[in-house]
């Protein structure tokens, strides 16, 4: 996750978001907002992801990031290639932080 040159990210594997929104219609608005924030992000380096999603981003080098929103009970895991301006959605599911908090 080195230096990036693009200022907007492309989302690949967005069908994961659509599929989850179909299963959980109440999460649709949140997923749309999340996607919009990612697509308009200008991540040049890993630090930028952390800066924009400081409270919810969990980095897993070299290129994996999990975004965990306990209040929304939502977790999105993706790979990020800042240099090419690419994100690849790997999975969408319920928040693990929330699970831990509720335990």
């Amino acid at each position, binding site marked *: 996750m080195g230096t990036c040159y693009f200022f907007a990210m492309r989302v690949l594997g967005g069908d994961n978001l659509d599929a989850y929104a179909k299963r959980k219609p109440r999460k649709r608005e949140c997923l749309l*907002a999340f996607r919009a*924030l990612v697509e308009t992000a200008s991540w040049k380096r890993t630090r930028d992801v952390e800066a924009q*999603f400081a*409270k919810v981003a969990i980095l897993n080098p070299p290129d994996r990031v999990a975004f965990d929103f306990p209040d929304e009970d939502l977790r999105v895991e993706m790979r990020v*290639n800042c240099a090419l301006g*690419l994100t690849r959605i790997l999975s969408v599911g319920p928040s693990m932080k929330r699970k831990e908090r509720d335990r």
Partner: protein
Amino acid sequence: MSEPIRPIRTEADHAAALAEIDVLFAASPGSADADRLEVLAVLVAEYERSHGTEMPAHPIEVLNLAMKAQGRSQAELAELLGSRSRASEVLGRRRQLSAAMVAKLAQAWAIPAALLSAPYTVESRAMRTLKIGIVVLAIMVGLSAASIGGLYAWYGADLPNSDQIAATIADSTANVPGFTPLDELPPEVIKAFLAAEDEDFYAHGGYSRAAILRAAWHTVSDKRQGGSTITQQVAKNVLLKETPSIGRKIKEIILAQRLEKALTKDRILEAWFNVIYFGGNEFGIAAASEHYFGKAPGDLSIAEAAYLAGLPKAPNAYRLDVANNQTRAKERRDWVLARMAADGMITVSAAHLASAEPLTTQDR
């Protein structure tokens, strides 16, 4: 040498392209892998765009999520927007984000202005007020229902059940001198009493909400008016011995409902005809018929039946044998006849003919 890149037309193509993207994902810019990844990414993005559900994100959801992502509180938003109410209204989607607010949010928190500028509707004050009204109304209805349920449980606990009611009614009517079965009463007599006392008798379930509300209103406005159905009157006269009160009225309604379950409508009406008070210490249609006209109920004319039907409401006000009630009694009789005609129980001409009859009771 790698496979040539093909267009993505099917889900299988899409899955295969994603699988290859996963392998190439860490490619460095400028490499052959990065070039291939770039082309695959364009094809996948286009396929997903054309097969996905593209909807704009709601600006407030974006703001909300961005705040969560950055650990921002509503108090911080209030500080940025200038007031707590403004922040609360914005987050509650009751207020549009103004251009100035969007600019502040974009500058201070780096939330893309384009996402916050998308149009969206806010709830009008009238709609909010309506919603609050509906909620308040629902709560009131819920509380009323709970209260009514509580009153029913409280007052109904010591009252007889349907079987006990049926037995009590049977005992009470068995001891009535000159008991008159319903099928011995001419239809006009039955119609006259229904017109005067309870025209919806065969339709209601023991009590009439409208009649109770009307009676309650008249009581509040100090103009007392009975709201009891025939079933309630049977319950009151046979099953309750208490002095009038709100509590007795509630018990009366509970008993009326149980009575309707215990007996058929005809049996309830029969019981009523045989226990109802007609003044002059006369109870029951047979005694009243004999007392006022010296005849059996089966021999009553329409006019006589209408007169008797007008008595139970206030016997002493319409009795001809104790006071100078002639005018009032005739008005009452004629009112019953008019009701019968209006309800289609008798013809208008029959009502006119009966009204023309002099109102006389036998000398005693």
